[in-house]
């Protein structure tokens, strides 16, 4: 009987998921830091006539699991819980540039006595650093089969596949007569026998770390990187946005020429082109932001940023380990909340889950960009800083400050914290691979476009329907939307939001915005397009600038910094905490903060004006 199931195990950031992607052809997220994979992932590939199932497991430093993601790996390796998957072979992936650390886990797995083989990954990086590994000797010392792999090269897993063609792999030989030996000693002995390396660490890494991890310059460089990122989001996206806007308007005009005036044309022009087109304009900004984030992820800089911020995070009740989950939340809070599984301390994990929705996820970007574009003039500050970019950076900083402030308050309520020193593996620096970057951006664009064509389209059509039906009475004097279902709902809820300066149109857009934050932009576009008495509705930003006060715009921006406008995030908090109590607390405090700060900002702005 041939091998049918294999499990990829190993230390974090050794390239398991890259190998999984190479073997199965899938596109699971990979990055140059530990803790990207927190759930098991299943895939398969054909090998001759056989199909081999591959399980990609979260990284673990040892079988002595200390966090929820490591427990999954421990359970499957030890067979205490199979999760419906029985691996015939454990493929232990190790980083060839960091054998001193990774071989300890190999020895632990070997002691289990299960069939296994070692995939010596990143052999190309090892060769660049002058590390010479005698694979045959290593195989002899370990007592298990060893194969070289390069998970980022197209044919980098060929030798691994050859080994898996065998009917079965032998279990490692464990000599019962052998004297017990400390694992560290054992690793040192194996390395002496089979590996020669010019120096323990990379000279380039050491040189860069001298500056990037410097307590003063390091923080300054981090600030500069973030500053440049947000400036670029505005400065580089404008021509692309104008192009998309012109295309959507052209399409809308073409529809007007083909279709007769009527309800169907209204759906197309006010709902689909007005609503979806407005959201689509923000794709360039999202892609520019992610180009920076992906490049930073690939470079290996992010764990350094976590290290730099550990002191601040610890003071506010978080930990440097919270950095990566919080950073993931800038894409979307859901994977960010899931990434907290790599945090060992349950209190730290809970605190990170509770504050993750405060980080500025990419779905907020269209709302911010719309309002900043409408209310903040496009002008330079001090010669070459972009004012709109500065305001956007300010909103992101506001989100970061609120993360720390809320964590600090939680720390005051919960004093059961146990001290955990930050042990973080700093990966080697790598130049971002342009192909991987392009694939990452393409995936991001697809996710966004799928949302536009999926949930945003669905809700825009429904909001258009509610805004158009029932039609106005014969003696109507107000715009038609005032008599519609949406108009009535908006007017009914408006008094609740009047103290924070929201009109009924904003209130209405917030409701579908609960499903996805960007829908609020599409919602506003649809509602204002239908409300318009003239045929020429113009760009949404210009319409808002003429109908809202600056105080209202600031209030909406503040609301979006805090409000948990996303049902999926709330559901994920419930799943990860397994507690309705904490889910309720999160929803209550986020809405409470949103209302309180929006009220404060609105009333202050009104008073000042």
């Amino acid at each position, binding site marked *: 009987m041939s091998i049918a199931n294999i499990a990829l195990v190993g230390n974090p950031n050794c390239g398991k998921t890259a190998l999984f992607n190479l073997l199965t052809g899938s596109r699971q997220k990979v990055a140059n830091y530990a803790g990207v994979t927190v759930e098991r992932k299943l895939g398969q590939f054909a090998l001759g006539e056989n199909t081999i199932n591959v399980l990609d497991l979260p990284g673990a430093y040892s079988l002595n699991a200390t966090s929820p993601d490591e427990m999954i790996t421990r359970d499957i390796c030890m067979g205490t819980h199979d999760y419906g998957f029985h691996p015939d072979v454990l493929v232990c992936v190790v980083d060839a540039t960091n054998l001193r650390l990774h071989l300890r886990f190999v020895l632990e797995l070997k002691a289990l006595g299960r069939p296994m083989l070692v995939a010596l990954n990143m052999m190309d990086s090892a060769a660049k650093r002058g590390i010479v590994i005698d694979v045959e000797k290593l195989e002899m010392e370990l007592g298990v089969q060893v194969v070289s792999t390069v998970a980022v090269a197209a044919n980098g897993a060929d030798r691994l596949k050859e080994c898996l063609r065998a009917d079965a792999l032998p279990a490692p030989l464990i000599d019962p007569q052998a004297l017990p030996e400390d694992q560290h000693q054992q690793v040192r002995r194996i390395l002496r026998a089979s590996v020669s390396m010019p120096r323990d660490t990379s000279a380039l890494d050491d040189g860069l770390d001298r500056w990037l991890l410097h307590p003063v310059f390091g923080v300054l460089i981090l600030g500069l990187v973030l500053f440049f990122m947000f400036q670029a989001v505005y400065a580089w996206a404008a021509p692309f946005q104008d192009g998309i806007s012109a295309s959507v308007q052209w399409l809308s005009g073409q529809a007007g020429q083909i279709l*007769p005036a*009527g309800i169907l044309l209204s759906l197309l022009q006010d709902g689909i082109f007005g609503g979806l087109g407005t959201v689509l304009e923000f794709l360039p900004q999202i892609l520019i932001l992610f180009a920076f984030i992906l490049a930073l992820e690939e470079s290996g800089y992010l764990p350094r940023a976590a290290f730099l911020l550990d002191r601040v995070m610890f003071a506010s009740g978080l930990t440097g380990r919270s950095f990566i989950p919080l950073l993931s939340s800038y*894409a979307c809070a*859901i994977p960010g909340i899931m990434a907290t599984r790599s945090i060992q301390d349950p209190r730290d994990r809970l605190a990170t889950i509770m504050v993750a929705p405060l980080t500025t996820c990419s779905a907020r970007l269209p709302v911010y960009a719309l309002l900043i574009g409408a209310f903040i003039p496009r002008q330079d500050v001090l010669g070459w800083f972009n004012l709109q970019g500065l305001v956007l950076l300010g909103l992101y900083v506001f989100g970061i400050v609120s993360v720390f402030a809320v964590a600090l308050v939680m720390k005051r309520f919960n004093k059961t914290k146990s001290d955990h020193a930050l042990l973080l593996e700093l990966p080697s620096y790598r130049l971002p691979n342009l192909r991987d970057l392009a694939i990452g951006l393409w995936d991001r664009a697809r996710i966004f476009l799928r949302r536009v064509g*999926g*949930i945003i389209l669905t809700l825009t*059509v429904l909001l258009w329907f509610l805004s158009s039906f029932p039609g106005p009475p014969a003696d109507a004097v107000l715009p038609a939307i005032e008599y519609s279902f949406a108009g009535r709902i908006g007017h009914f809820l408006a008094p609740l939001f009047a103290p924070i300066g929201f009109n009924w149109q904003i209130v209405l857009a917030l409701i579908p915005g609960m499903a996805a934050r960007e829908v609020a932009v599409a919602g506003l576009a649809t509602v204002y397009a239908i409300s318009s008495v003239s045929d020429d509705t113009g760009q949404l930003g210009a319409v808002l600038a003429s109908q809202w006060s600056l105080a209202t715009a600031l209030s909406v921006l503040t609301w979006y910094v805090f409000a948990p406008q996303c049902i999926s995030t709330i559901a*994920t908090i419930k799943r990860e905490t397994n507690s309705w109590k904490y889910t309720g607390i999160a929803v209550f405090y986020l809405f409470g903060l949103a209302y309180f700060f929006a009220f404060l900002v609105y009333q202050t702005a009104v008073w000042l004006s």
Partner: protein
Amino acid sequence: MSPLWQNLLIYALVLWCVWRLLRKYLPAWSWQNQARLSYFLESKNPLWLKRLGQRLRPAAVIPQGCNTHCSKCNACS
């Protein structure tokens, strides 16, 4: 296109959107009701109702919402 056809098209589109919304946010509930409707129609006599019921029969597996272990967070939404 006559106003009647335009209205019919709009109603069909709105129903489809409501169904998509329910499938996303109330997957188990919508699956149960779809199964109930399908069973009801299949038990009726005219052949076209039976066929409609068969077409409406939901997939054997209850669709998963965004709060389950589908490992595709932020990709399926």
